[in-house]
Structures are given as C-alpha cells and as structure tokens.
C-alpha cells in the first residue's frame, strides 16, 4: 500500500502543476509551504552551526577563541539599533573583504589564467580542438572594437567577428537546449513519481 508521505508528495506535485490553470488555493498552499519549509530548514541549519561550531566549543570545552565569531555575528544585528548601527559595518566589512579576496583568487587562478594557458597550448590536431580554438579567436575578434572600421585590419576583424558572433549564437542555442533538457528532467522526475511510485503504472 502506498504510504502517507507518497500521497502527500503526489498531492503537492499535482498542486504545483495546477498552476497551469491559473492561481488557485492548492498551488498557493504548495508555494507557501515550500518557502516556509526552506526558511525553517535554513534557520535550524544555522542554529546547529552556531551550536556545534562556536557555542559548544566555548562553553563546554573552554575554547574561548570562538568567542570572536560569536561576538562578530552578534555585532551584525546591531544594525537594528540605530545609535549603534555603525558597529555592524565592522564584521560586514570583514565578510565582504574575505569573500572578495576568495573570489579574486578563484577568478584569477582557476577561471582566468589556467583556461587561457590551456587554450593557448592546445594542439591543432583534432577537429574538435580546431573548432574550439577558431571559436575562441573569432569570439575575441567580435569584441575588438578599438580598431578603425575603415582600415583594412579593422574590416578584417569585423568579418572574423561576424563569424564569432554566429559561433557564439550556436553556443547560446546549445546552452538554451540544455535548459530545456533540464526542464524536461523535472517533468520526467515528477511523472516517474506520479505514475511509478504513486500509481505503480510505470514498473
């Protein structure tokens, strides 16, 4: 016999798809339940994090170094106390600074230098590699706007840039197709659940 959680899952799935027929009570319930569950989950996860990573080490193991993040975290809430709101900027500045430093490091090293070095060192020995390198060069040519349009070099870049534009459009099209595939995956997953797990029609 199908269990209660599966029934609830099936009713909520149907509720979500009922949006096809416009806003309705069941859809609104599903939407609000989803937001509510997500918020509750985040709250409990955050509470657990503070408890296990900071509170317990300080008050059970005497590791007072963890008072620093606890105090810094509490300082963030001072933005709600108008005369002391400026204090909240201190931990916020630290968070933004650390986050920026990390993404600059990631962007420069992993997302910029290494892929460029790898493309520059790529051998022209397979059709895939040739298309790859040609697309990179033509795509770059599209963004070269500093050359005079009437010069021979400028016109050459413009022509290659047109090819680059077309190749980029193919790329964007493939990306969109991936999006469609992703959307289909959600539908397939839900239909598998409804017609397989719930109704037992799909074996």
């Amino acid at each position, binding site marked *: 016999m199908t269990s209660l959680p599966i029934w609830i899952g099936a009713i909520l799935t149907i509720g979500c798809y009922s949006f096809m027929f416009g806003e309705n009570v069941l859809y609104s319930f599903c939407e609000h339940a989803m937001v509510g569950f997500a918020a509750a989950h985040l709250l409990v996860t955050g509470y657990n994090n503070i408890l296990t990573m900071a509170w317990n080490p300080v008050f059970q193991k005497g590791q007072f170094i963890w008072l620093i993040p606890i105090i810094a975290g509490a300082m963030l809430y001072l933005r709600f106390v108008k005369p002391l709101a400026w204090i909240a900027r201190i931990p916020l500045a630290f968070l933004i600074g650390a986050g920026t430093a990390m993404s600059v490091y990631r962007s420069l090293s992993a997302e910029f230098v290494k892929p460029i070095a790898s493309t520059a060192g790529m051998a022209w020995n397979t059709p895939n590699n040739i298309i790859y390198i040609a697309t990179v060069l033509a795509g770059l040519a599209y963004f070269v706007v500093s050359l005079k349009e009437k010069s021979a070099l400028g016109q050459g870049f413009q022509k290659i840039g047109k090819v680059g534009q077309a190749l980029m459009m193919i790329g964007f099209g493939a*990306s969109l197709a991936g999006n469609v*595939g992703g959307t289909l995956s959600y539908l397939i997953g839900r239909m598998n659940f409804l017609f397989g797990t719930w109704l037992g029609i*799909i074996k």
Partner: protein
Amino acid sequence: MNRLAEWLSNIDVRILQAGLVIVVVFALVNPMGLSVPITEGATRAYESINSLPAGSKVIFAVSTNPGSAAEHAAMGPAILKHLVKDKIKIAFIPTGSQATAYVADYVNQAKKLGYKEGTDFVNLPFRAGDEKFVASLGTGFKSVYKELPSSPLWDSMVDIKSFSMWIDISGGQSQMWAIAHIGDPFKIPVVSGVNSNMIMNLEQYLKSGQLSGLLGGLAGGAQYEVLSGAPASGVASMDAQGFGYLWIILLLILGNIGYLTSKKAGTAKGGVTGD
C-alpha cells in the same frame, strides 16, 4: 490556410503543455531503449573513478537542492554504486544548506549496498560559508569538523591530501570552488556532475584538465549508467527526454509555419495565449 496559421499561432499553451505530459508519460510507460550517446566528459568521469585503487578515499560533495534534484537523480546514485563496487571509501559532504536531505539519501543508498558508517563512509555535517568552507577544507580539513567522534575511517582522513578525488554533484558553483581551492592547489582530480544548462560553461575546464570528468543533467547520469554497465532510472528516462525534445521541435516547426504564413498574409501577432 490563413485560418490554420492563425489557429497555430494562437493555440492555448495549456494544450501544448498537456501534450508534452502525454508524450513523456507514454515514453515512460512504453520504453523503447533508444541509444544513449556518450560524451567525452562522461567517459573521462567514468575512467577517472574506475582508475581509483580499492581503499582510496574520495570526497562526495553534494549541493543538490529541490531545483536541481531531478537533474542529479541518476548521476549521483550511478557514481555511488560504482564507488561501492570498487570499494572506495567515501566522505559525504553537503556544500549547500538544502543538500543535507539529499546526502541522507546517498547515505541510505550506501548502507543498502552494504557500506558501513565509520569504516566505509563518513557522513560529515553541513557547514555554512560556501566557498570559504570549501577553501577551509583545503587549509585545515580536520579543524572544520572538530566535534566528530573517532572512527577508523575518520581517523585515517588526516587532511585534504588523504583524498584521491573530489566528486562534486552540484547545481551551483561548488565545482568552481573545488577546482580553485582543492583541485588546482592540491592536485586532487575533480569530477563534476552538474545541471545540463551548465555544461557549456564548464567544458573549458575539462579541456584544461582542471576537471577530470563532467556529467550534465539526466543525460549525464544515463551515460554514466551505460558506462558502468548498470542501466537504471537515467537510461529509462532517456526515451522520455528524447520524445519530449521531439515534441518541442514539432511545436517549433508548427509555430514557425503559423507565424511565417500569418506574416505573409500580414496578420502576424506572435506570442502565445493562455499564460
């Protein structure tokens, strides 16, 4: 002809959506076993994992959320089965706050496959911080999980260099954090399973060798199932996905016929109704 074109241009979107549902359900109920083309990323993912010697340790990082769960439904279990078959030790890590439920699913699957907690796998709790968290795993792996009780496997995981691979199932950016803070600095191979729309952006990291394998969406999962010789839900869903694509292509053709015919007659409006 004009009336047909007008009807095509103004067809109720709910009819099109219902058609898609019917096509998908038909293909799910009547599987035809269409072939699953294998990509380079999937082959490399399979070969990288297959080359790990028994007893190696891997990180199985998951940042699946309800919005990406359907895309990861096949690839995660397929990789997990492969790891268990090859007796690879696993550290499950949620890298997104909503991923804990999905990690719990993987843990249950591992137990069903005969894996024991503490000796074959460890289930590490969620830590906030996103990229900062992943970076801190590189610089001080043990210090992130100080409260965990001792177990034979956990005790053998001294630092990030204890691991032979980072497997990342993600609908977000965690594969980039893994490349930047784990893969590149510590020379640990990163295999990534992502949503299908992310493949285009990540192919370059496969080319540069920063990724050792790349699986995209449900199709990526199906490819991995084929490669590991264990067809399951991914392969079974490929017929449905193929039929879904055919339905969408058919609608594109019909829509364009309707639009072009209306345009010729000077009555083109474009768009759809009912949304």
